[in-house]
């Protein structure tokens, strides 16, 4: 798994917010009316996925992705 920095993780967390907020509007285009709780659940799922990627990246970093290894 690719290792991501805490800062990038935080930035990605920020990006999940507009996705979650507009998720319901998007569903609305197709006539699907979701309750407010769906937004919270969706956001929670996004955060869980991100956290999983972050944690896995920390536990099993790719060999070639070591800090500074790729800088020319």
């Amino acid at each position, binding site marked *: 798994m690719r290792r991501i920095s*805490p*800062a*990038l993780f*935080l930035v990605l967390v*920020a990006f999940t*917010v507009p996705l979650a*907020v507009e998720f319901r509007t998007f569903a609305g285009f197709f006539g699907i009316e979701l309750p*407010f709780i769906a937004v919270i659940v969706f956001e929670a799922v996004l955060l869980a996925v991100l956290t999983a990627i972050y944690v896995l990246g920390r536990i099993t970093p790719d060999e070639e992705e070591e800090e500074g290894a*790729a800088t*020319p």
Partner: protein
Amino acid sequence: MATFVDKFPDEAKVVQASFAVAFIALGIGALFGLIQALHRTNVLRVIDSVDYYTLLTAHGVLLALVFTIFFLVGLFTWAVTRSFGRALPDIRLTWAWFGLMTTGTVLATVAIVAGLFPQIPMSADVLYTFYAPLQAHPIFYIGLAMFIIGTWMAGADWFLAYREWRGENPDSRIPLQAFMVLTTMIMWYVSTLGVAVSVVFFLIPWSLGLIETVNPLLTRTLFWYFGHPVVYFWLMPAYLLWYTVLPKLAGGRLFSDPLARVVFVLFVLLSTPVGIHHQYVDPGIAEGFKFIAMTNTMFLLLPSLLTAFTVVASVEHGARQRGGEGYLSWLGALPWRDPAFAGMALAGLMFAAGGFSGMINAGMNINYLVHNTLWVPGHFHMTVGTAVALTMMAGTYWLLPQLTGKAVYSRPIGLLQVIMWFIGMVFMSNAMHRAGLFGVPRRTAEPQYQNFDFVAAVGSVGEIRMQIAFGSLLLFLSVVLFLFNVAATWADDRVDTPVDDTIPEPLSPSSGAPLVLDNLALWTGIAVLLVVLAYTLPLASIVNDAGLLGGSPTFPVTVSLEWVVDVTVGALGNLSLDSLAGVAPADAVADLVREVRR
């Protein structure tokens, strides 16, 4: 390693002072913004609805004019000094414009804030657009005029620096940052003419009682003659940072110097002859003039779309220099830990969203749906409120160390702060856009009306209100963290190398740019010509219709008590008393009595 403060200690002091005024205005304006957001969403009400407009005026003036423009004059002073590599011609002139602008700011702010105290016979609850015939205290207009004249002197200071530099470098290209400053100031001189005429010839004499009446459509049109270019005046410092600083922070260099010059020239040409697009639904202006403003506005998208390309290409180049690979995974190689980089990148991203909502506003027939609704503040909180404000805050994390010789107090707090701003604005701005679509008006203390309910297409009105309140809370906390971080930096000790302040040469250097791009007189001439073409006929017809001075006498923001009682009694059928002020009936009467005494 010597940084800016070591090379130009006098100029660094002016820039620091300008930033200090900007940040004080930011703090006060943000606090008022929070109070308003909580008030109109009915979450927490600490003020009367009548005072809402006083705070709204202060919020607009302090953030949109004082914070942005004081940051701009600081940044431009830094950019001119740095890119010419020489001290300003006369530091006394520099302090003079700083003093004039600050005095003007203080006068205007005092006139506004006095509106909160009934015992002071002064108020300026006319909002940032000060449409006559609503009248403010003369001190408000005089303060604004001093502020504008201060910016003109600042521009003169930079042009004098240019002349000195040109004397010694007759054949060199104007350095890119200086080019950006000079073109922006040309745009500013052309556009502030409108508001200066409006304030000096009409509003000041009228508020002093020297002339009896004004022509409301004329002063409004003159305001918008200035009111659209001013948004580019806010945006150009952000562009300057995106073009010249952001690529460096990303680890690379600017993609193309010539294209950056083209973009700034386009702004000089097209920024002003578009103001009528704020008046699409005004009577008294023929449809043809609105159509011209619309096409000019659409072409004004071009420089921003070109900027999107150049800035993203430069950042991608930086990421690849840092070892980034693939179509999109280079994004991960960017220095996200650096608050200056992360803040500017997030600001740029939100500017893309704000740009799209701006395209909606520019479409003159779809504008009917959103004109003067909450959609509009939603739009400009993304543009000036994020693209500009967040870029300025992020830029501070890179500039302040050069100006003070001190390292940023805490980069993690900085990163947290810029991300909080982004998330807060996602909530607030998104909800404002949506509320505007179903008709919630802007500039209103009380969005709860008696005769009808707003209907949300997706979700509920209550959720939208909560999003606005929550977003504004995050934004306010973000400003608190920012101000804390800046104050702590200022209070720190000096270090040897506070920041890497080098800016590498662009990939396509200025030598590739056609010489005509540096012909400032030519672009000024064309810009003036376009303005004359776009504005002569509309202004002539407005003056012809209702006269130069019109027929509107003075109107205070409040009306007499007897009149209100008459109206209330007459309207008892479907209007209850408390709707007059939206608070409890007793409070409403108390407010009105207080207003009458004022």
